[in-house]
């Protein structure tokens, strides 16, 4: 197995051009911490970002950071923190769930369009992406977007590359908008609510003027009793005020308590990374996105047929669900429930044979599949980048 470790964009172009000429399928790798996510790709060589790790631009006063794809996420988070800044989208760390080690890279954050609890307020990686550079399947270095806050010049290929799981090109630089870190973060907790009631409470909070940045519900089955969590962030005086207003607003549901800062911080990390359902490790894990008000119903519908545990983020719109790996990890039941409600389900964790047999991502309808195949061919005509990682045909 050849392993390519380009040190520059030019280097990567040459490697890709050669691979395209030889029709050599390439697995794109960053820190390797999410290798167990997605369909197992078919490849003969590895194209790694391990030697492209520089932060190429950071202008704190302009709220913009650019880095090569192999730059570690933790390094970037540290650098931003030195200037009291952070990524707006709170990218999740898949290591606890996938039992992997190593360092997640900023390239993978973009390639997988990661986000976290703040998705509902700060968007996903796609929403903060200002620009990317990448090598396409012709071995050409392509620039799209840039480093400025607003940019509608030409087709938005940035969006296409972010979330493509490395199937459309090899990222050589990513540029993100960053935000000031909040001076204070505080979390309200309501206890003992059913899924349905909890989501109603979260909807009330999210539909209030109090700028909620996290809205999750951990049902009793998760352990620790049913907890419904609402997070606000900002200047200390403003946070205090909004906590008070939210408590009055939510009185009808329960008396909301303010959690201790450290405990709350750990809890939001556990929600972000889904560690609350990581154990037992032999269970499959699904990540389901639906309209928030249908979340409880989708989970209940699934639980009628298969044994499952779950929790909600995004105000009820994101369901993390653990179930047996048997019967294709319950794919048929889960997808039927989601289809009825509208949304999609991604198989995040399962043994390799299950991930090879089950659609990891919801399969597209024919017209969309045709567009995706066309897009793949337009960027990667010989089909060498991460073949099969998202869908068998891409």
């Amino acid at each position, binding site marked *: 197995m050849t392993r390519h470790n380009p040190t520059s964009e030019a280097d990567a172009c040459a490697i890709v051009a050669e691979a395209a000429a030889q029709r050599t399928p390439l697995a794109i790798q960053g820190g390797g911490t999410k290798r167990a996510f997605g369909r197992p790709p078919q490849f003969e060589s590895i194209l790694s970002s391990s030697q492209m790790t520089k932060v190429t631009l950071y*202008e*704190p*006063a*302009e*709220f*913009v950071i650019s880095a090569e794809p192999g730059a570690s996420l933790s390094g970037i988070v540290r650098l931003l923190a030195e200037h009291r800044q952070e990524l707006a989208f709170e990218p999740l760390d898949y290591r606890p769930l996938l039992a992997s080690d190593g360092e997640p890279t900023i390239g993978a954050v973009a390639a997988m*369009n990661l*986000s976290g609890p703040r*998705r509902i307020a700060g*968007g996903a990686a796609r929403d903060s992406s200002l620009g990317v550079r990448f090598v396409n399947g012709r071995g050409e270095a*392509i*620039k*799209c977007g*840039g*480093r*400025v*806050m*607003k940019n*509608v*010049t*030409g*087709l*938005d*290929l940035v*969006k*296409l590359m*972010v*979330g493509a799981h490395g199937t459309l090109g090899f990222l050589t630089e990513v540029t993100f908008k960053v935000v*000031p*870190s909040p001076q204070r973060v505080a979390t309200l907790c309501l206890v003992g609510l059913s899924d349905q009631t909890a989501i*109603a409470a979260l909807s009330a909070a*999210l*539909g209030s*003027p109090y*700028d909620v940045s996290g809205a999750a519900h951990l049902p009793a089955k998760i352990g620790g009793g049913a907890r419904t969590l609402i997070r606000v962030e900002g200047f200390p*005086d*403003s946070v205090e*005020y909004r906590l008070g*207003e939210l408590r009055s607003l939510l009185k009808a549901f329960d008396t909301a308590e303010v959690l201790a800062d450290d405990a709350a911080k750990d809890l939001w990390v556990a929600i972000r990374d889904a560690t609350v359902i990581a154990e037992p490790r032999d269970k499959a894990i699904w990540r389901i*996105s*639906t*309209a928030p*008000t249908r979340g409880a119903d989708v989970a209940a519908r699934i639980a009628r047929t298969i044994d499952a545990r779950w929790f909600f983020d*995004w105000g009820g*719109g*994101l369901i993390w669900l653990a179930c047996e790996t048997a019967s294709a990890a319950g794919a048929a039941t889960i997808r039927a429930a989601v289809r009825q409600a*509208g*949304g*999609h389900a991604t198989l995040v964790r399962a043994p390799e044979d299950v991930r090879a047999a089950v659609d990891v991502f*919801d399969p*597209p309808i024919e*017209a*969309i599949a045709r*567009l*995706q195949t*066309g*897009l793949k061919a*337009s*960027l990667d005509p010989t089909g060498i980048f991460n073949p099969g990682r*998202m869908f068998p045909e891409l």
Partner: protein
Amino acid sequence: MPIAFPIPDEAVLGRRGEILTGLGQLVAPEALIISEDERRAFETDALTAYRRMPLAVLLPSTTTEVSTVLKFCAQNQVKVVPRGAGTSLAGGAIPQEDAIVLGVSKMNRILDVNFENRTARVQAGVTNLAVSQAVAHEGFFYAPDPSSQLACTIAGNIGMNSGGAHCLKYGVTTNNILGVTLVLLDGTIVEIGGEHLDSPGYDLLGLIVGSEGQLGVVTEAVVRIRRAAEGAKPVLFGFDTSEEAGACVAAIMGAGIIPVAIEFMDKQTIEIVEGFAKAGYPLDVGALLIIEVEGSEREMEAVLARIVVIARKHNVRHIKESHSAAEAAAIWKGRKSAFGATGRVADYICMDGTVPLGQLSNVLKRTGEIVASYGLRVANVFHAGDGNMHPLILYNVNDPAEQAKAEAAGEDILKYCVEVGGCLTGEHGVGIEKRDLMRFQFEERDLRQQMRVRAVFDPAWLLNPAKVFPLDNRLTA
């Protein structure tokens, strides 16, 4: 050099009668506009210096009608120029003689509002402001707010990925759309996204938003609605110089304060706007910032106090808070009527480059020099918080020499924006206006890659074909 249009396809022009008959069989009679008088209303948009009479204008009422029209056009190789309200400043909706205009303005209903999920499903021809109005009774709003929001449609906003003054905090169109109903050129109707977040597979939604009507026609959208803050307060800060105002913007944001909006006006704009809107702007300052804060009274006061401390360090000369809803509305009315008010004193072309925040003062200065070197005047009014500049170059549209100078000055300004790390357009789109400047921002291979992506949706260049990409060296696959 005036902006070029492609030479009309004689064969298509020759088939006009046959094409109109075919289209007439597909849509209700009132949806097909063929008389020259009525077509004239569609021959240009807000880039009024350019106009072309289309073959016909179609104003369908349903997605199915849009689908049958597109299918017919694809089969008969008829070009299609999609249109919302025709408010494009970049000429994005200007037709060509061998194309039909496909307008979505009759599809203007709000289909469903879900306050609990904070979403609304709307037909794409609804106006931007109508969406906010439809949810205002519950205290909600739709965040992107282009100055033309009274007239412009969600379809056009999606086409151009429109912004507005408040996107500093709430993002632009692409951050506020959850799904679309898209009609492809062959008539296929697809749903992309929905009421949920993110979608499996490639981010087609992200690709469609900002694609300037080149990939398909959007007939419905699921938009994100938000609960408005308890209160909002725009405050005027006057400075002697643009440099001081620019430095103040950088300092505010550097302190970790992201207001909802930071708008900038230079002396020229202040005078024009005040003369028209009587917004209460000070006339004895060289530059004005409108900074909007929001929240409860106490929160607004606290943030404002922080901003005032910073502004004083930057020699602010004049601070005026709005003390009532009427005063606040007047301040915004002034800002939002800046383009219209300018249009009453002169013709203008509006540039839309975005630059890194640290370059604001420099680019303002250079803009003044460039425009002066052509013997013209400029009024600057823009979104300072995100570096999105809008120099309005004033000229006389009936003087071709002056028009040429204005366009040349605009080109020089945009090239300078790119040179300092910025881009040609932050929210208005490329249209025809900046099409031939694309090579200053992109390498040929970058453009070829974009065109290859475009070709997946429209290999024969039938959809809005004269826009975005230079007319030469086009790729079909």
